[in-house]
């Protein structure tokens, strides 16, 4: 009997050895060794915690609340860290811990987390994605639990689905026109206010190594974000593109490229790339958001630039960006809500929102913001014309159809008419579902 037991354990031990041997030979035959050796770009496993650990409490157990965010700007991370520390020190029941998840992985992590029931307690999420996750049923219904009477309509709409409130807006931003003052002066141009003026100015500014104008046209949400102001400026709605207005917006963007005053490479430029081209003087005017302001001031202190409303066709328009807090539907809801209420309270928002480069989603804070910063004041003015994307649970799919359409036009693989028609049939199919 004894012998058998020993031989059984021996077998297990040998098995363990053969197991390691097996796994390594297995991976070489499927080829995953290559990716292991080369360190792929996939950062799934590397969720780095960048916020300072909460101050350890000496008074017994505190309840832990976790939060996920994707801000990669150091300044943003610092401000979030400060707010969390402030909250953790203000009471002795809860400890909030923040985790940074890269933007590229955020949706993936959240989707995987949703199906594996391994979610944080709070997420800071991109506005247009809010409805999708709310429709997954992972967010807690906050209707009536938070006072949102002081908020702007756009941000509130982005966290509302079927009349129910599924989040609290954090802060907002929108896109505006940046222009290089020196280049404009040199070419004897004034700041464009309409589409026609934009085109003639951009043409006048275009020289050998300088494109007159640029906006990020990548084929994803970022590109759609930058395209929507053109579509809306015609007076159009995001869900109807195959009409005179939609085709006009597509044609305008396509013509900018065709006539040489915008580089075709914008389809590979993120908003950060566009800003870098602007700073290095390769681009004379660009569309970008207020979060770039601190960076530009820091990296190009000698550059003379300013901000204006995005030139209009029929009406001024911009697109609303920004993040919302959402609370995951779990047993920690009340604890999470306490933190969210703290961070979104009037006094707290007032203390950090300027440094963040955002416009407060609370009207009672935004009104008094940036009294001595003319650039940021311009963004606040542009906010009046900013509309939210969606909100629709399938917005990512709708956005995909729109971004494909303007990419087709920019690369001249389709005419604006064909692109609009194709996008419309996709959007109709999505809405009907």
């Amino acid at each position, binding site marked *: 009997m004894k012998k058998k037991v020993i031989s059984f354990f021996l*077998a297990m031990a040998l*098995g363990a050895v053969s197991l390691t041997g097996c*796994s390594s030979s297995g991976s070489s035959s499927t*080829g995953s060794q290559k990716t292991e050796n080369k360190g792929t770009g996939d950062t799934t496993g590397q969720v780095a915690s960048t916020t300072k650990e909460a101050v350890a409490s000496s008074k017994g157990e505190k309840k832990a609340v976790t939060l996920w965010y994707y801000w990669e700007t150091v300044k943003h991370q610092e401000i979030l860290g400060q707010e969390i520390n402030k909250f953790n020190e203000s009471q002795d029941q809860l400890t909030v811990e923040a985790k940074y998840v890269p933007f590229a992985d955020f949706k993936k992590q959240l*989707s995987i987390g949703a199906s594996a029931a391994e979610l944080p307690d709070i997420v800071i999420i991109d506005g247009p994605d809010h409805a999708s996750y709310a429709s*997954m049923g992972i967010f807690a219904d906050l209707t009536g639990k938070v006072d949102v009477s002081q908020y702007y309509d756009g941000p509130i709409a982005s966290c509302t689905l079927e009349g129910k409130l599924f989040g609290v807006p954090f802060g907002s931003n929108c896109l505006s026109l940046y222009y290089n003052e020196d280049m404009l002066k040199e070419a004897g141009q004034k700041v464009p206010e309409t589409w026609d003026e934009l085109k003639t100015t951009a043409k006048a500014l275009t020289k050998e190594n300088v494109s007159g104008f640029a906006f990020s046209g990548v*084929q994803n949400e970022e590109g759609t974000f930058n395209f929507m102001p053109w579509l809306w400026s015609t007076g159009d709605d995001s869900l109807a593109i195959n009409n005179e207005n939609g085709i006009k917006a597509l044609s305008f963007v396509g013509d900018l490229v065709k006539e040489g005053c915008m580089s075709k*490479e914008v389809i590979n430029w993120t908003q950060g790339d566009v800003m870098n081209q602007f700073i290095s003087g390769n681009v004379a005017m660009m569309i970008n958001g207020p979060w770039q302001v601190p960076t530009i001031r820091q990296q190009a202190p000698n550059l003379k630039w300013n901000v204006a409303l995005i030139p209009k066709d029929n009406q001024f328009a911009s697109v609303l960006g920004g993040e919302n807090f959402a609370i995951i539907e779990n047993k920690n809801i009340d604890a999470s809500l306490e933190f969210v209420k703290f961070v979104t309270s009037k006094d707290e928002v007032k203390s950090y929102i300027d440094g963040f480069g955002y416009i407060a989603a609370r009207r009672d804070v935004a009104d008094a913001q940036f009294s001595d910063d003319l650039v940021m004041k311009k963004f606040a003015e542009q906010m009046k014309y900013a509309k939210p994307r969606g909100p629709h649970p399938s917005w990512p799919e709708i956005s995909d159809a729109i971004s494909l359409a303007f*990419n087709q036009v920019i690369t001249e693989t389709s005419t604006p008419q064909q692109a609009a028609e194709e996008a419309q049939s996709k959007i109709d199919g999505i809405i009907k579902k």
Partner: protein
Amino acid sequence: MNRIRKFFQFENIGYLYVLPALLYMMYFVGYPIIRNIVLSLQNVTVKTLNAPVKELIGLNNYLELFRDKIMINSLINTLVFTVACLIVQFMIGFALALFLSRKFASAKMVRGLLMIPWMIPITVTALIFKFIFSTNVGILNQSLMLLKLISAPVDWLTSPGTAMFALVFANIWIGIPFNMILLSTGLTIIPTELYESASIDGANRIQSFFRITLPLLKPTIESVLVLGFIYTFKVFDLVYVMTGGGPVNSTHMLSTYAYKLSFGIFQYSKGAAVANIMFVVLLIVSLFYLKLTYEEEEA
């Protein structure tokens, strides 16, 4: 009882040794595969991800995918990409291996240096090539203009026709060292006496290459090609960083399209179906490879 005792006799103990490995494989390899197949037969999107019961819709996802232009394109792209890369990588890798198998002073060092592309993380390589192929600031266009080979900058990464070429080019650069090093190792095991006696018999270089090198190198060549096929077919990071499947979806591979479906527009089931199509292709190639190695071990 007797039967159980009989089973645990000494000659059957081998099964026990295999058991842990079997359990491991079943849990970490078998389960995800089966889960993915089930997922591809359901209709899981944002709205149904957390539903307790998920509707089975049979092969509908697959049928829809085969009517999807982008899907068909990705399949063709992946095959074209794989075959083009494989052929060029193999030829250049083989030529380098032959060259470096000659005994000259710096052969070892050069071989080491040539491994560098293989060791750089793919994301970094992809970013570098993105700069190289950039229309206005890329070094490739600048050089070609200086040499007067082109009169205007070429839109390498921003027009559907040339983006694929740029991807193939970048991947070949990465893949050459892999082919070179495996073929080099294969070459070292061919005894030099064979070449000596062949040259005494009056065989020239070309004859000894076709009569000695190629036949003796056959097993190595087979595994290089099959492994190369599997590696290349699974390409993701390079494409994701360089073009993201664009412009206008023209360079989507099966892997990037599966990712986009699942995590870009939340069509989890369709994404799983694309991944399964990839899996089937690779399974066939792997079985072919196993058969080859099995036959060689037998012989």
